């Protein structure tokens, strides 16, 4: 049988950059998309640890719930009709660590449902964060952008996009 997880694109930054956009996504052959990032920020303090994402450049209609733990406490919050997907525990400058962030976008081409996603950000220095939510649109996803919210990611940060085959 054919491989069901196919590398579509990957990029390792040669210099600091704030935004990465995956465009012209496949219009057939795949059911889900997985984006994996390994990142560190060029700034060291909050709010410079935020990892944002959008699809189709849409600046509205993201609904999601987050859950995180920092080693001493846990918390959960939620967002409605937000302008982007927000994760907040990305690795800061000087931490010596790169975070690992994974997004799963489900049924990204299907127009009979809003686009559900799951995400997890792992940062050994600050703790894990899980996110579940949706982009409240039945449009197919044609592009995915991720952002270092207010600064940039350092050279060496990497981003990979995979397609999950589903007949």
């Amino acid at each position: 049988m054919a491989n069901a997880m196919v590398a579509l694109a990957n990029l390792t930054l040669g210099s600091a950059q704030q935004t990465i956009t995956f465009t012209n996504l496949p219009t057939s052959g795949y059911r889900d998309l997985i984006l994996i990032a390994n990142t560190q920020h060029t700034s060291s303090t909050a709010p410079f640890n935020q990892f944002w994402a959008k699809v189709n450049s849409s600046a509205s209609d993201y609904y999601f719930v987050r859950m995180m733990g920092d080693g001493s406490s846990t918390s959960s919050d939620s967002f409605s009709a937000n302008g982007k997907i927000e994760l907040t525990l990305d690795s800061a400058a000087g931490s010596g660590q790169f975070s690992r962030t994974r997004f799963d976008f489900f049924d990204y081409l299907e127009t009979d449902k809003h686009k559900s996603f799951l995400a997890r950000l792992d940062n050994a220095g600050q703790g894990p964060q899980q996110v579940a939510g949706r982009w409240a649109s039945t449009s197919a996803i044609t592009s995915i952008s991720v952002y270092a919210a207010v600064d940039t990611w350092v050279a060496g940060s990497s981003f990979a996009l995979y397609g999950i085959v589903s007949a």
Partner: protein
Amino acid sequence: MLGSLWFNSFSAGGGGAAADYELISTTVLGSSAASVTFSGLGTSAAAYKHLQVRYVANGDSASYRNRMRLNGDTGTNYATHLLFGTGSSVVSAAGTSTTEMALSSGANTSNVFNAGVVDLLDFQNVSKNKTMRALVGSNGEVALTSGVWLSTSAVTSVSLRPDAGNFITGSRFSLYGLK
């Protein structure tokens, strides 16, 4: 600065890359159904070490939680622990001696589907109980779950169902094998 990656052509199947993660079966509901079952795994999944279910589903009940059952075993042979965020707090819950394992919750809201990635480990090993772990979520909840089926039998079927009502049209369930 905007960095763009452009895609010009794709071929599902990976262009000859080593196939260690493979699609076994997908079900997309064309009409509502009380459950979805992947069966015959003793044959169709014999080449794999682990299984993964990816789903995006909605139900027709105002409140439900998705459940997973193995080999059609309806006995009280399952346990699940959940750590979930509700949007205001983080809660831990457990169920032991249950008849199924717990996954994501949902509500019958138009276009709003809940999703999950469920790993079922070493499913053919007949000397250990079968363990499951999952990241699941919906519009109002995100959860990490771990579960066990207290049986050393090889897993030959995997069933999912909402604990109230039916899965609705458009719900999708895919089963993958990992070598």
